[in-house]
């Protein structure tokens, strides 16, 4: 019998404290980072649409969910892309190649339902382009015709354009300020595509909650089935805490075990938006403290010098 990834882990003695080494790191835009990190078991199990939960350090870190942007079962790595926003995402961005993340658990959530729908529009907003890419890639493999719409505030913040170009039959880029592609919100081209003779059979939208909300309002007018992937606050990611709960068609659902993908026309986005902001003040405080701490121990200077 061939050795499973699990057995190999034991042989290398890594299983007890499966720590996760950062193999590769890049900065995709001012505040968006990507890493390839070793997570052999997750890499071999991950399917498009799934996510992980990580805690940088077992003692003090919070647990945050991040979508798996890509996985490489052969190399045993997964790709994570995130935006530097609060303390944890800043600390994550400060990690260097060779350093480790103590805890990564996954793959979590239900994988994307893949089939040959026909014509599929994939709409990605900002950092949402990262989790969208593996889904669009898989949909393409299923034989779908893919139209991708990527939006960002400006040229610098747009990520993964060439990756999407490679798998899309048509690619539309929009920026709020017109510094790249069309000066528009993603809803504009989305509406135009819905009005075309060949109406899309399916739409996938991943991005900020507000953007997903307005995209769903557009596709609802045209009665195009639309799936969204929600990224809510979570702790365990296994259905245990209920912190990620959202209202779907008036029913309470857990993003971690029932999602993360839902019928966008049924999501109560207004409530979700408010729940996302529950700890805004806490997050700011934690970030300020972290920055202050970095100054004191001179971490900020080190990174400065490197640049």
């Amino acid at each position, binding site marked *: *019998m061939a050795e*499973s990834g*699990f*057995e190999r882990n*034991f042989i290398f003695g890594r*299983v*007890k*404290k*499966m720590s996760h080494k950062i193999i590769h790191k890049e900065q995709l835009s001012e505040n968006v980072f990507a890493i390839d990190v070793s997570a052999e*078991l*997750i890499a071999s*199990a991950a399917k498009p649409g799934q996510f992980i939960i990580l*805690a940088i350090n*077992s*003692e*003090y*870190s*919070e*647990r945050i969910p991040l979508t798996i942007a890509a996985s490489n079962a052969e190399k045993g790595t997964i790709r994570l892309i995130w935006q530097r926003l609060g*303390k*944890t995402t800043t600390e994550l961005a400060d990690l260097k190649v060779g350093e480790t993340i*103590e*805890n*990564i*658990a*996954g*793959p*979590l959530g239900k994988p994307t339902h893949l089939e040959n729908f026909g014509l599929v529009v994939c709409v990605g907003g900002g950092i949402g382009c990262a989790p969208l890419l593996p889904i669009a890639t898989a949909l393409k493999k299923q034989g779908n015709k893919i139209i991708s719409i990527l939006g960002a505030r400006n040229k610098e913040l747009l990520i993964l354009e060439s990756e999407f170009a490679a798998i899309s039959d048509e690619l539309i880029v929009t920026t709020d300020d017109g510094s790249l592609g069309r000066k528009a919100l993603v809803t504009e081209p989305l509406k135009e595509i819905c009005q075309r003779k060949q109406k899309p059979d399916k739409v996938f939208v991943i991005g900020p909650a507000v953007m997903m909300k307005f995209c769903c309002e557009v596709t609802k007018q045209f009665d195009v089935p639309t799936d969204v992937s929600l990224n809510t606050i979570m*702790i*365990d990611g*296994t*259905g*245990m*805490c*209920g*912190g990620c*709960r*959202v*209202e779907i068609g008036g029913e*309470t659902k857990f993003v971690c*075990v029932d999602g993360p993908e839902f019928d966008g026309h049924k999501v109560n986005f207004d*409530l979700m938006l*408010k*729940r996302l*902001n*529950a*700890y805004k003040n*806490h*997050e700011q*405080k*934690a970030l300020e*403290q972290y920055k202050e701490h970095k100054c004191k121990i001179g971490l900020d200077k080190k990174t400065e010098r490197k640049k």
Partner: protein
Amino acid sequence: MIEKERQQLLDELLEKQKQGRLKPSDRFAIPCQQMPQQDAMERKNNVEEVTTGYSETQARLEAMRCLGCKTAPCVNGCPVRINIKDFITAIADGEFAKALGIIKENSLLPAVCGRVCPQEVQCQEKCTVGLKFKDVNKAVSIGRLERFAADWGDKQNEKDVPKIAAKTKIKVAVIGSGPGSIVAAADTARAGHDVTMFEAFHKTGGVMVYGIPEFRLPKKIVQKEIDVLEKMGVKIVRNFIVGKTRTIEQLMSEDGFDAVYIGVGAGLPKFMGIEGESLVGVYSANEYLTRANLMKAYKFGNGSDTPIIRSKKIAVVGGGNVAMDCSRMALRLGAEKVYLLYRRTEKEMPARVEEVHHAKEEGVEFHTLQSPQKIIGDENSCVKAVECIKYELGEPDESGRRRPVAIENSEFTIDLDAVIIAIGNGANPLIGQTTPNLKFNKWGNIIVDENCKTSIDGVWAGGDIVLGSATVILAMGQGRGAAAAINKYFAEKLSERSGDN
């Protein structure tokens, strides 16, 4: 009673005993030994353990209250049949190591069970001394004595590692690291099997770590038990979600596990299904306690990155131990008012008497015969009030408890900034979703036979995923039963095999 007086009394009693003059009436006359505890007003500002444990003299005095009944009715009240009479006699004789040894024959986690078991409805309910006084609170404090023996053992600084039988090369996977799983892992490891324990969280201990607060069960006690497992050779894999990282099928067919014990607990919070339950500031008990305990949110900004809403006025809905834990945790997180809302009366509360007592001492306000029917939010969707309705008790329902009946037009509102829903947990669906041949009942609990064996060959299950929400001791009992069945199953297989040769 001060320690000097206690010592004097103990000496007198021992002298009488030596002369063979100690009568049951002397034992009845010994005052019940109260558990030393932190002052209520002080402890509500810290997370240190509330009760501090008996002194040796106290323990021996309390143990001398035991009549040593021939029939030992207490043992029948214990889910794992600890030889209570003998361990209490050993404590009375000052032979604490012997006492601990007797307990450990049947229970692997005395420090935990001595603290969190509901003794008043188990062993102590059957105690002759309590029956004589017609008051279960005057029964011999078996739980406190169990805790005393366990803590005494810990202080001896040598955690003895159980003897391991010759290695069998049988691979056992234990899923979950709560009380049932710890026992299942220990007992199968003792039989010489190669045991791996899988935990979904980044820390082991299950509900004893994420659920039960530090002030009721210090985490270092749980960690010690995990350390013993590791010393016994049990491999522990954290951040591993069975059903997601690997399925049970994969563990058995690809990773070479011969047996699996499922002890994943009842981790799916129940909500009430009322309006406003998704507002900001409404927590499930699981989320609130996990943030506070596992993630140490009480140290936010000073050693923990996990935030928690620091409410001033908070309502906890429910009447079980978890509701008490949430209420008391809320006080420690700085709440000025904590209202406990329960539909029935205090008599029907499933919480332990001691927990209710401690909660009241610390200032939790009990609002019985009331329950929320709507949670009201402000313009930012944050909780600002809860609309309640009053109840009265009607006829008993199938559980034997009198059914609460809503009183018409009795609605009223309470201003609040957070609500915690602590009305129980359902079964977590993760294993079910990914293990097609495993049979579940209509509540989502795994169906097992009397030996905890499931519908799949080689797979056993126990604890809350089988029982619904139960207790640490019942989970332990099942872990033990399942381990015995696993050990027997493979012992038979191995002897068959050697017979064939």
